[in-house]
């Protein structure tokens, strides 16, 4: 009967821990995506529809302090009939109580963000 060597056993144990950590991590990530979708919806509802549409909505968690979960949500606004976004809004969504609540919104122009020299290299 083949003997099990200690290094191989240790490596196998580390593999099991790695597998468990990966599975748990991916589960947490997937759950995070669901939370993010809810936040994006709440954020867009808060912004309302004053004409145009919001494109490229993306969310990422910025704070995960004990008892407080705050997410950062951004969206590009596309004016009616336009093909490209004219401004971007970013906000913080606080999910501490379970219900999403937008706590702050920053709005800034994509055009203003363009570096003045960009035309020199942009094709």
């Amino acid at each position, binding site marked *: 009967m083949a003997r099990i060597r200690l290094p*191989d056993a240790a490596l196998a144990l580390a*593999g099991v821990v*790695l597998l468990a*950590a990966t599975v*748990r*991590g991916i589960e*947490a*990530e997937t759950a995070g995506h669901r939370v993010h979708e809810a936040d994006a919806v709440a954020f867009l509802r808060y912004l309302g529809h004053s004409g145009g549409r919001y494109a490229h909505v993306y969310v990422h968690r910025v704070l995960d302090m004990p008892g407080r979960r705050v997410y950062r949500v951004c969206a590009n606004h596309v004016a009616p009939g336009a093909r490209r976004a004219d401004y971007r809004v970013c906000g913080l969504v606080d999910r501490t109580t379970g219900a999403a609540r937008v706590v702050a919104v920053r709005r800034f122009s994509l055009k203003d963000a363009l*570096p003045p020299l960009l035309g020199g290299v*942009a094709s």
Partner: protein
Amino acid sequence: MSAAAVPARRPLTALTAVPLALVVGAGVAVALAGAGTHGFLVPIEYRGVRGWIDGPLAPLGIAVSRTAFAAELVVMTAGYVGVLALGDAVDERLVLIATGALHVLFGLAPPLLSTDVMSYVDYARLAAVHHLSPYRSAPWAAPHDVVFRFVHWRGTRSAYGPLFTAATWPLGLVSPVVALWVLKGAAALAGLACVGLVWRIARRLGRSPSFAAAAFGLNPVVVVWTVGGGHNDMLMLATLLGGVLLVLERRELGAGAAVLVALGIKATAGLALPFALLGSRRRGRLALGAALGAIAVVAVGYLGFSDHAVGLLDVLHKERLLISQQSVAHGVLRLLGLQEDARTRLALTAALAGSLVLLVLAAWRRRIGWVAAIGWALLAAVVTSTWTVPWYTIWPLPFAAAARDRRLLAATLALQASTLAYVVAGLAGA
């Protein structure tokens, strides 16, 4: 006799060709997907699609969905595992052709799955154009710069060694287009140099060079993320592997200098120094070479950036405070219900220090080969950090491949599999 050998070789060649064709075929699909898909594959272009970023493969680009890209990655990985399963039966010529083709292809692809290469360009421009030290000033110091909008880590000062920062300084004087493609080309050439060095080191150690070259040069994380992303990890590894080969060739003076030059590119390489000392026959000469290399690194750092380069240590400390979902340390802490705080970080640092001490002892008592010990040390550095990105997982790979340490290879590939699982799950679920 030779006539008998030919028919024996043919089935092996044909057998090798199948998984190799999978790796290359899926690799071509991934590279063309990168050239045709803006956004998640070429994150620089989140802030604006540019022809000069898309590069020479743009006319051949094929736009793909996230799921299709995940499937291409899975096929490429399956082919790679198939090549490894063949062991010594891999055909040398086919391996070299496939490795060369993939490195050229991903060298020509747009910067994939990372924005770091634009940080390199921005740091060069901070120094050369704006006369700011990238060790004291982050990209935010020059928000009007032409490449600023393509940089993701805008508040982060340079975490790279003074030799890399000094060598890339002239790239700040040329157009960002030239700078980007010089860095991409350098990553591809350094990758090919790594393959050649792994080949020669494996031969010196009496291992199969073709297996070693295939294990490193066809690895999806090596070609897609590291060459594709234009990361300087390839330059660091090529220099470090050069040092390892010099130790094996008993050219210790050059070996010591090479290890320190690698450290001057990226500090991680410094972990290899004690093992190179243990592996060399003339340790005094290696130490002398390392001392000369250290003088060169300090001189370049001081002449180029005054005493600011010391700020690199602060940036590296802050990087270890970052958390990525893919980190093994983060995953294990989460599994245990713990969070990253002062105590757990101290425990992780102690685990790394303890691992290094044990490895030095094991290499000293010759219970483990010194080349493999370098790989284990680099693996320990990745596993105990809460900040892991896919291209960090290639650090131990050339040493595992060249020394053909099956446990190290298994551990490195398990780490990469975990990282890829996050990527694939993220792509499929996004």
